[in-house]
């Protein structure tokens, strides 16, 4: 029998990457340095009842920096001071971002939860004054409006974004670089400018009055770059051999794309659509400029004013009464839930993609 070549890679020698091995002594010091300062700071707060922020900045941080610097000195000598500083700064600043995100989500959930009730979600805002108590009226019309407006712009944007991504990956087009730069520049388009543009094009010129579809149009320039870029990434992940195999079997390019590349990149494209929707579902400025917030449920995107969640939020923050702010928190929670649903579905879709690739 023919001898099979052993394809398993050579085992890494134990002495490889000596810099990544840490001595037990170092581990002890490092864990001491990460526990002691926190313990001292917490102890001080417990004993003296000091303000948390003050304790954080006056007691915890200096001690932590000194401790990390001491550990650095024992390992690396004098240059270790900066090493300790880097570690402390990185972890502290990273957790600061965590704290910010936690604060945003916690405040929206805790404040919005009080407003959330079936009537708040299903009723519309007709006859509701800014100071009406929360038992009456809700965001039903805004949820419907948001879904319709975003749905219409998704229907327009997705084919456009998909075809743009096809141009960027499947064709031999000469202006790929320019298109990519334009898309990147468009992804930084200020949302208010997009609203002004549609206002100037359709409303100021008298073609139409405020309506749902003008809002949809205003969302397209904001959504297109996200959809096109993520789709491009997804198409790029499809192995070249698959595509070339189909072409070599005599399939025309469009068949190779529709029957081979597209199914292979399906979950990536779904991710692109979901991320694009998540990008625009909370956009406020364009909708404020192009859809006049209505109080009643309007199911026709092409006629009449239409409410949406962001404009609802915008109006109720502007009223400034306690009840209206309460409603605003409720609407913010609804938006956040919608974004979370989209975000989690995008994660799930991209996870199935990575599984399929293995």
């Amino acid at each position, binding site marked *: 029998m023919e001898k099979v070549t052993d394809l398993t890679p050579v085992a890494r020698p134990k002495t490889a990457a000596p810099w990544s091995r840490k001595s037990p002594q170092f581990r002890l010091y490092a864990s001491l340095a990460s526990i002691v300062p926190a313990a001292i700071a917490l102890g001080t707060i417990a004993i003296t009842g000091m303000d948390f922020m003050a304790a954080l900045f006056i007691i915890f941080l200096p001690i932590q920096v000194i401790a990390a610097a001491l550990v650095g000195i024992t390992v690396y000598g004098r240059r270790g001071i900066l090493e300790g500083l880097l570690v402390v700064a990185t972890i502290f600043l990273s957790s600061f971002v965590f704290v910010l995100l936690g604060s945003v989500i916690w405040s929206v959930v805790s404040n919005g939860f009080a407003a959330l009730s079936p009537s708040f979600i299903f009723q519309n805002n007709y006859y509701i004054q800014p100071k009406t108590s929360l038992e009456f009226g809700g965001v039903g019309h805004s949820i419907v409006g948001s879904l319709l407006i975003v749905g219409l712009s998704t229907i327009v944007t997705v084919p*456009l974004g998909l075809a*743009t991504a096809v141009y960027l990956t499947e064709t031999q087009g000469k202006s790929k670089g320019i298109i990519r730069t334009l898309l990147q520049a468009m992804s930084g388009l200020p949302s208010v400018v997009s609203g002004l543009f549609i206002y100037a094009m359709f409303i100021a010129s008298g073609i139409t009055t405020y309506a749902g579809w003008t809002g949809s149009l205003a969302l397209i320039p904001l959504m297109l770059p996200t959809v096109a870029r993520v789709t491009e990434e997804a198409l790029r992940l499809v192995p070249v051999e698959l595509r070339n195999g189909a072409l070599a079997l005599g399939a025309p390019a469009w068949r190779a794309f529709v029957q081979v590349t597209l199914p292979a990149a399906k979950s990536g494209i779904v991710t692109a659509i979901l991320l694009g929707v998540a990008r625009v579902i*909370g956009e406020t400025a364009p909708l404020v400029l192009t859809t006049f917030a209505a109080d009643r449920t309007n199911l026709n995107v092409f006629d009449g004013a239409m409410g949406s969640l962001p404009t609802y939020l915008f109006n109720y923050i502007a009223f400034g009464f306690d009840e209206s702010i309460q409603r605003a928190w409720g609407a913010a929670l609804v938006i956040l839930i919608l974004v979370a649903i989209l975000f989690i579905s995008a994660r799930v879709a991209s996870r199935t993609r990575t599984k399929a690739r293995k």
Partner: protein
Amino acid sequence: MTVNVPSEKIERRKLASKPFARADRIFFSVSTAAAYSSFVIIALILIFLVGRAIPAFQKQGIIDFAFGSTWDSAATPATFQLGPMLWGSILISLIGVVIAVPLAISIAYFIEFMAHKTLAKIVTTVVDLLAAIPSIVLGLWGAFVFSPIAAGWAKMLNQSMGWIPIFDNPEQNFLRSPFIAGIVVAVMIVPIIASITREIFSQMDRDVINASLALGGNRESTFRKVILPTAAGGVIGGVLLGLGRALGETVAVLYVLNISFDINWANVLQAKGGSVASMIISKFGEANPDEISALMAAGLVLFVFTLIINSIASYIVAKAQPWRK
């Protein structure tokens, strides 16, 4: 058996450089047309904004419009000048970038070089989640939850370093200042800068880093002398993209800033500032046609400004990743 073909009858077959099938030609032309739609959209935005803005430019004069500091629709003749807003936008974006860059770089460093795989994945998700929060929700949070806290920070800053002119605040009112707006903007652009920086970090040659460590460098010297210089281009591009986003930030800034046409050069703790985008949305509701034209002109200025910054940024990011074609 040989076949004699007169040499002039042999036609060299051309290599296929164009699709033969009609369906393919349609397929390619549709995708090309779609690709140029982004070009068309940007051109349309420019055309329509310029069209609406011309009356304002003619009445006010371009230089006066951009740099003057009066906005009064009741005056005769109505005066619309953008100066304080333009400077306010730049000031807030700069504050935002100064705060966001250390946060974003340390998060990217943490994800790529310090955390274990699972933790890195969680942190990446958190950063993406932060990017997905709509700006109006952040505005609501900024106005009712964060502003009081940040006002406390501003007060501390003023008391400890008030002798520096930029932290001066004689009125002792710390709410709705450019400082707070800058922090809220920083929260919005941290994910943008962080994700680009992380991408650049993750594509770096690991051998270079390992070589630095093997030569006796520690994490800090490797970061300062190897990682940062190699990744600098991409990081700068990311920062510029963040800057572009910060300039265009609308509703989040509206709720945490007192918009004032009394120009505030650098007193970041005082409760007056400006932002072009937020000014547009706050004045739009009750604007007369003249003012609408001026607002369009303001939008045009903002658009051209962000377009230039973003184009430079994406050019730098593309240059920093030569392996991506």
